[in-house]
Protein backbone atom coordinates (compact mmCIF):
# COMPACT_ATOMS: atom_id res chain seq x y z
CA UNK A 1 0.00 0.00 0.00
CA UNK A 2 2.78 2.37 0.88
CA UNK A 3 4.40 2.24 -2.57
CA UNK A 4 1.20 2.86 -4.53
CA UNK A 5 1.16 6.67 -4.89
CA UNK A 6 4.75 6.59 -6.15
CA UNK A 7 3.98 3.91 -8.74
CA UNK A 8 1.05 5.98 -10.00
CA UNK A 9 3.16 9.12 -10.30
CA UNK A 10 5.88 7.25 -12.18
CA UNK A 11 3.26 5.86 -14.56
CA UNK A 12 1.96 9.35 -15.35
CA UNK A 13 5.44 10.68 -16.08
CA UNK A 14 6.24 7.85 -18.53
CA UNK A 15 2.85 8.22 -20.25
CA UNK A 16 3.42 11.95 -20.74
CA UNK A 17 6.82 11.28 -22.33
CA UNK A 18 5.38 8.65 -24.66
CA UNK A 19 2.67 10.94 -26.06
CA UNK A 20 4.75 14.09 -26.38
CA UNK A 21 5.43 15.36 -29.92
CA UNK A 22 9.10 15.32 -30.88
CA UNK A 23 9.84 18.70 -32.45
CA UNK A 24 11.19 18.45 -36.04
CA UNK A 25 14.88 19.04 -36.69
CA UNK A 26 15.20 21.15 -39.86
CA UNK A 27 18.81 20.05 -40.30
CA UNK A 28 18.01 16.33 -40.42
CA UNK A 29 17.70 15.04 -44.03
CA UNK A 30 15.83 11.95 -42.77
CA UNK A 31 12.75 14.01 -41.93
CA UNK A 32 11.68 14.61 -45.54
CA UNK A 33 8.83 12.24 -46.52
CA UNK A 34 9.38 11.10 -50.13
CA UNK A 35 6.23 10.66 -52.26
CA UNK A 36 7.31 7.28 -53.69
CA UNK A 37 9.28 4.18 -52.68
CA UNK A 38 12.13 3.47 -55.04
CA UNK A 39 13.22 -0.16 -55.10
CA UNK A 40 14.03 -3.16 -57.27
CA UNK A 41 11.41 -5.91 -56.79
CA UNK A 42 12.32 -9.44 -55.76
CA UNK A 43 12.15 -12.30 -58.27
CA UNK A 44 12.43 -16.07 -57.98
CA UNK A 45 15.40 -17.48 -56.08
CA UNK A 46 18.61 -17.85 -58.09
CA UNK A 47 19.30 -21.40 -59.31
CA UNK A 48 22.45 -23.20 -58.14
CA UNK A 49 23.83 -23.25 -61.69
CA UNK A 50 23.67 -19.48 -61.96
CA UNK A 51 25.05 -19.03 -58.45
CA UNK A 52 28.02 -21.19 -59.49
CA UNK A 53 28.43 -19.09 -62.64
CA UNK A 54 28.53 -15.87 -60.61
CA UNK A 55 31.01 -17.34 -58.13
CA UNK A 56 33.19 -18.74 -60.93
CA UNK A 57 33.43 -15.29 -62.55
CA UNK A 58 34.30 -13.75 -59.18
CA UNK A 59 36.91 -16.42 -58.54
CA UNK A 60 38.45 -15.98 -62.01
CA UNK A 61 38.75 -12.23 -61.42
CA UNK A 62 40.35 -12.86 -57.99
CA UNK A 63 42.85 -15.32 -59.44
CA UNK A 64 43.71 -12.97 -62.28
CA UNK A 65 44.57 -10.27 -59.75
CA UNK A 66 46.25 -12.61 -57.28
CA UNK A 67 43.73 -11.89 -54.49
CA UNK A 68 42.55 -14.49 -51.94
CA UNK A 69 38.83 -14.07 -51.26
CA UNK A 70 35.77 -15.68 -49.73
CA UNK A 71 32.76 -15.66 -52.03
CA UNK A 72 29.14 -16.19 -50.92
CA UNK A 73 25.95 -16.30 -52.99
CA UNK A 74 22.55 -16.10 -51.28
CA UNK A 75 18.89 -16.05 -52.36
CA UNK A 76 16.58 -13.02 -52.04
CA UNK A 77 15.97 -13.79 -48.34
CA UNK A 78 19.69 -13.89 -47.60
CA UNK A 79 19.88 -17.67 -47.17
CA UNK A 80 23.11 -19.30 -48.33
CA UNK A 81 23.18 -21.11 -51.70
CA UNK A 82 26.87 -21.19 -52.59
CA UNK A 83 30.07 -20.53 -50.67
CA UNK A 84 33.76 -20.98 -51.27
CA UNK A 85 36.91 -19.92 -49.47
CA UNK A 86 40.03 -19.49 -51.56
CA UNK A 87 43.26 -20.84 -50.10
CA UNK A 88 44.99 -18.24 -47.87
CA UNK A 89 41.90 -16.06 -47.48
CA UNK A 90 41.71 -14.60 -43.96
CA UNK A 91 39.37 -16.48 -41.58
CA UNK A 92 37.27 -13.46 -40.66
CA UNK A 93 36.09 -13.30 -44.25
CA UNK A 94 34.25 -16.64 -44.07
CA UNK A 95 31.43 -14.97 -42.15
CA UNK A 96 31.89 -11.43 -43.50
CA UNK A 97 31.37 -12.56 -47.12
CA UNK A 98 28.12 -14.26 -46.09
CA UNK A 99 27.02 -11.21 -44.12
CA UNK A 100 27.67 -8.85 -47.02
CA UNK A 101 25.65 -11.05 -49.38
CA UNK A 102 22.84 -11.30 -46.83
CA UNK A 103 22.75 -7.52 -46.32
CA UNK A 104 22.67 -6.82 -50.09
CA UNK A 105 19.80 -9.31 -50.52
CA UNK A 106 17.69 -8.42 -47.48
CA UNK A 107 18.05 -4.65 -47.93
CA UNK A 108 18.02 -5.04 -51.74
CA UNK A 109 20.87 -2.63 -52.39
CA UNK A 110 24.66 -2.72 -52.59
CA UNK A 111 26.37 -2.53 -49.18
CA UNK A 112 28.41 0.44 -50.45
CA UNK A 113 25.20 2.53 -50.18
CA UNK A 114 25.26 2.08 -46.41
CA UNK A 115 29.01 2.64 -46.20
CA UNK A 116 28.65 6.00 -47.97
CA UNK A 117 25.65 7.12 -45.89
CA UNK A 118 27.39 6.20 -42.66
CA UNK A 119 30.42 8.23 -43.74
CA UNK A 120 28.20 11.31 -44.01
CA UNK A 121 28.07 11.30 -40.24
CA UNK A 122 25.63 12.25 -37.48
CA UNK A 123 22.17 11.90 -38.99
CA UNK A 124 23.05 8.47 -40.37
CA UNK A 125 24.66 7.17 -37.20
CA UNK A 126 21.48 5.15 -36.52
CA UNK A 127 22.17 2.84 -39.47
CA UNK A 128 24.29 0.29 -37.54
CA UNK A 129 21.31 -0.26 -35.21
CA UNK A 130 19.31 -1.83 -38.07
CA UNK A 131 18.90 -5.61 -37.98
CA UNK A 132 21.47 -8.00 -39.42
CA UNK A 133 23.46 -5.46 -41.41
CA UNK A 134 27.07 -4.92 -42.42
CA UNK A 135 28.04 -1.64 -44.05
CA UNK A 136 31.29 -2.60 -45.70
CA UNK A 137 31.27 -2.56 -49.51
CA UNK A 138 31.49 -5.90 -51.33
CA UNK A 139 27.86 -7.06 -51.23
CA UNK A 140 25.78 -6.60 -54.40
CA UNK A 141 22.32 -7.76 -55.46
CA UNK A 142 22.12 -10.10 -58.45
CA UNK A 143 19.51 -8.54 -60.73
CA UNK A 144 18.04 -10.42 -63.69
CA UNK A 145 15.25 -8.94 -65.84
CA UNK A 146 14.82 -6.11 -63.38
CA UNK A 147 14.33 -8.41 -60.41
CA UNK A 148 16.57 -9.30 -57.47
CA UNK A 149 17.08 -13.07 -57.51
CA UNK A 150 19.91 -13.13 -54.97
CA UNK A 151 23.12 -11.40 -53.94
CA UNK A 152 26.85 -11.99 -53.91
CA UNK A 153 29.17 -11.05 -51.05
CA UNK A 154 32.95 -10.97 -51.19
CA UNK A 155 35.50 -10.46 -48.43
CA UNK A 156 39.25 -10.90 -48.08
CA UNK A 157 40.87 -7.70 -49.32
CA UNK A 158 40.18 -3.99 -48.93
CA UNK A 159 36.53 -2.99 -49.32
CA UNK A 160 37.28 -1.68 -52.81
CA UNK A 161 38.99 -4.95 -53.82
CA UNK A 162 36.06 -6.94 -52.44
CA UNK A 163 33.55 -4.81 -54.34
CA UNK A 164 35.45 -5.15 -57.61
CA UNK A 165 35.25 -8.94 -57.33
CA UNK A 166 31.66 -8.89 -56.11
CA UNK A 167 30.56 -6.74 -59.06
CA UNK A 168 32.35 -9.04 -61.50
CA UNK A 169 30.37 -11.94 -60.04
CA UNK A 170 27.02 -10.12 -60.05
CA UNK A 171 27.56 -9.06 -63.67
CA UNK A 172 28.27 -12.63 -64.81
CA UNK A 173 24.84 -13.75 -63.61
CA UNK A 174 22.98 -11.35 -65.92
Amino acid sequence: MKGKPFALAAGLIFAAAAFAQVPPDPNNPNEAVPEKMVYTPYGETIKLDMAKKAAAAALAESEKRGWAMCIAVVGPTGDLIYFEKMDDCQWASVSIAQHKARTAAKYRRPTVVFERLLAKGGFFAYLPTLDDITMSRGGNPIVVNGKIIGAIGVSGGTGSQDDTISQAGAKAAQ
Partner: protein
Amino acid sequence: MKSRPMLTLDDCRKISAAAEEEAKKNHWNVAIAILDDGGHLLHLIRMDGASPFNARTAIAKGRTAAESRRSSLVWEERIKAGRTSMLGMPDITPVQGGLPIVIEGAYIGGVGVSGVQSHEDEQIAAAGIKALG
Protein backbone atom coordinates in the same frame (compact mmCIF):
# COMPACT_ATOMS: atom_id res chain seq x y z
CA MET B 1 57.39 -29.86 -35.64
CA LYS B 2 54.49 -31.87 -36.91
CA SER B 3 53.05 -31.29 -40.38
CA ARG B 4 49.68 -32.46 -41.51
CA PRO B 5 47.56 -32.26 -44.64
CA MET B 6 45.13 -29.38 -45.11
CA LEU B 7 42.10 -29.06 -47.42
CA THR B 8 42.55 -26.73 -50.39
CA LEU B 9 39.77 -25.20 -52.48
CA ASP B 10 40.58 -27.74 -55.19
CA ASP B 11 40.06 -30.60 -52.71
CA CYS B 12 36.75 -29.08 -51.61
CA ARG B 13 35.63 -28.81 -55.21
CA LYS B 14 36.41 -32.49 -55.81
CA ILE B 15 34.44 -33.52 -52.72
CA SER B 16 31.52 -31.24 -53.52
CA ALA B 17 31.29 -32.28 -57.19
CA ALA B 18 31.34 -35.99 -56.35
CA ALA B 19 28.76 -35.56 -53.60
CA GLU B 20 26.52 -33.50 -55.88
CA GLU B 21 26.86 -36.19 -58.56
CA GLU B 22 25.75 -38.86 -56.07
CA ALA B 23 22.74 -36.72 -55.10
CA LYS B 24 21.79 -35.99 -58.71
CA LYS B 25 22.08 -39.66 -59.64
CA ASN B 26 19.41 -40.42 -57.05
CA HIS B 27 17.31 -37.32 -57.81
CA TRP B 28 17.92 -35.95 -54.32
CA ASN B 29 17.98 -32.21 -53.61
CA VAL B 30 20.38 -31.52 -50.77
CA ALA B 31 22.81 -29.03 -49.29
CA ILE B 32 26.46 -30.10 -49.03
CA ALA B 33 28.90 -28.36 -46.67
CA ILE B 34 32.65 -28.88 -46.29
CA LEU B 35 34.48 -27.60 -43.22
CA ASP B 36 38.05 -27.71 -41.93
CA ASP B 37 39.05 -29.43 -38.68
CA GLY B 38 38.27 -26.28 -36.71
CA GLY B 39 34.69 -26.28 -38.00
CA HIS B 40 35.18 -23.32 -40.36
CA LEU B 41 33.14 -23.35 -43.56
CA LEU B 42 35.25 -23.86 -46.69
CA HIS B 43 32.65 -24.76 -49.31
CA LEU B 44 28.88 -25.07 -49.60
CA ILE B 45 26.30 -25.78 -52.26
CA ARG B 46 22.54 -25.80 -51.83
CA MET B 47 20.88 -27.59 -54.74
CA ASP B 48 17.64 -26.23 -56.25
CA GLY B 49 14.75 -27.43 -54.12
CA ALA B 50 16.79 -27.81 -50.92
CA SER B 51 15.74 -25.40 -48.15
CA PRO B 52 17.63 -22.77 -46.16
CA PHE B 53 17.17 -25.14 -43.21
CA ASN B 54 19.04 -27.84 -45.16
CA ALA B 55 21.98 -25.46 -45.68
CA ARG B 56 22.18 -24.69 -41.96
CA THR B 57 21.79 -28.34 -41.01
CA ALA B 58 24.47 -29.46 -43.48
CA ILE B 59 26.91 -27.01 -41.88
CA ALA B 60 25.92 -28.18 -38.38
CA LYS B 61 26.39 -31.89 -39.21
CA GLY B 62 29.68 -31.22 -40.97
CA ARG B 63 30.93 -29.19 -38.01
CA THR B 64 29.95 -31.97 -35.61
CA ALA B 65 31.99 -34.52 -37.58
CA ALA B 66 34.94 -32.18 -38.20
CA GLU B 67 35.38 -30.97 -34.64
CA SER B 68 34.56 -34.19 -32.79
CA ARG B 69 36.47 -36.37 -35.29
CA ARG B 70 33.69 -38.89 -35.54
CA SER B 71 30.57 -39.27 -37.64
CA SER B 72 27.47 -37.47 -36.44
CA LEU B 73 25.76 -40.90 -36.42
CA VAL B 74 28.06 -41.97 -33.56
CA TRP B 75 26.62 -39.10 -31.51
CA GLU B 76 23.07 -40.00 -32.54
CA GLU B 77 23.55 -43.62 -31.45
CA ARG B 78 25.20 -42.74 -28.16
CA ILE B 79 22.32 -40.50 -27.22
CA LYS B 80 19.77 -43.04 -28.43
CA ALA B 81 21.46 -45.62 -26.20
CA GLY B 82 20.61 -43.44 -23.23
CA ARG B 83 23.56 -41.12 -22.85
CA THR B 84 21.29 -38.06 -22.98
CA SER B 85 23.87 -35.89 -21.21
CA MET B 86 25.71 -35.84 -24.55
CA LEU B 87 23.06 -33.38 -25.76
CA GLY B 88 24.91 -30.79 -23.72
CA MET B 89 28.15 -31.08 -25.68
CA PRO B 90 29.10 -27.83 -27.45
CA ASP B 91 28.09 -27.41 -31.12
CA ILE B 92 27.06 -31.02 -31.57
CA THR B 93 24.24 -31.93 -33.97
CA PRO B 94 23.67 -35.62 -33.25
CA VAL B 95 22.00 -36.55 -36.54
CA GLN B 96 23.39 -38.90 -39.19
CA GLY B 97 24.75 -37.19 -42.32
CA GLY B 98 28.07 -35.74 -41.16
CA LEU B 99 31.38 -37.56 -41.72
CA PRO B 100 34.97 -36.66 -40.77
CA ILE B 101 37.62 -36.43 -43.52
CA VAL B 102 40.66 -38.53 -42.61
CA ILE B 103 43.81 -38.32 -44.74
CA GLU B 104 47.03 -40.13 -43.82
CA GLY B 105 45.63 -40.77 -40.37
CA ALA B 106 44.95 -37.09 -39.77
CA TYR B 107 41.50 -35.60 -39.21
CA ILE B 108 41.42 -32.61 -41.55
CA GLY B 109 37.76 -31.66 -41.73
CA GLY B 110 34.20 -32.83 -42.24
CA VAL B 111 31.40 -33.09 -44.77
CA GLY B 112 27.77 -32.49 -43.81
CA VAL B 113 24.73 -33.22 -45.96
CA SER B 114 21.05 -32.47 -45.39
CA GLY B 115 17.94 -32.83 -47.54
CA VAL B 116 16.93 -36.49 -47.72
CA GLN B 117 16.77 -39.35 -45.22
CA SER B 118 19.69 -39.29 -42.82
CA HIS B 119 21.32 -42.49 -44.10
CA GLU B 120 21.02 -41.12 -47.63
CA ASP B 121 22.60 -37.85 -46.52
CA GLU B 122 25.53 -39.88 -45.19
CA GLN B 123 25.76 -41.85 -48.43
CA ILE B 124 26.22 -38.54 -50.30
CA ALA B 125 28.85 -37.32 -47.84
CA ALA B 126 30.75 -40.62 -48.17
CA ALA B 127 30.69 -40.39 -51.98
CA GLY B 128 32.20 -36.92 -51.72
CA ILE B 129 35.02 -37.94 -49.39
CA LYS B 130 35.80 -40.98 -51.55
CA ALA B 131 36.64 -38.66 -54.45
CA LEU B 132 39.66 -37.37 -52.50
CA GLY B 133 41.31 -40.75 -53.16
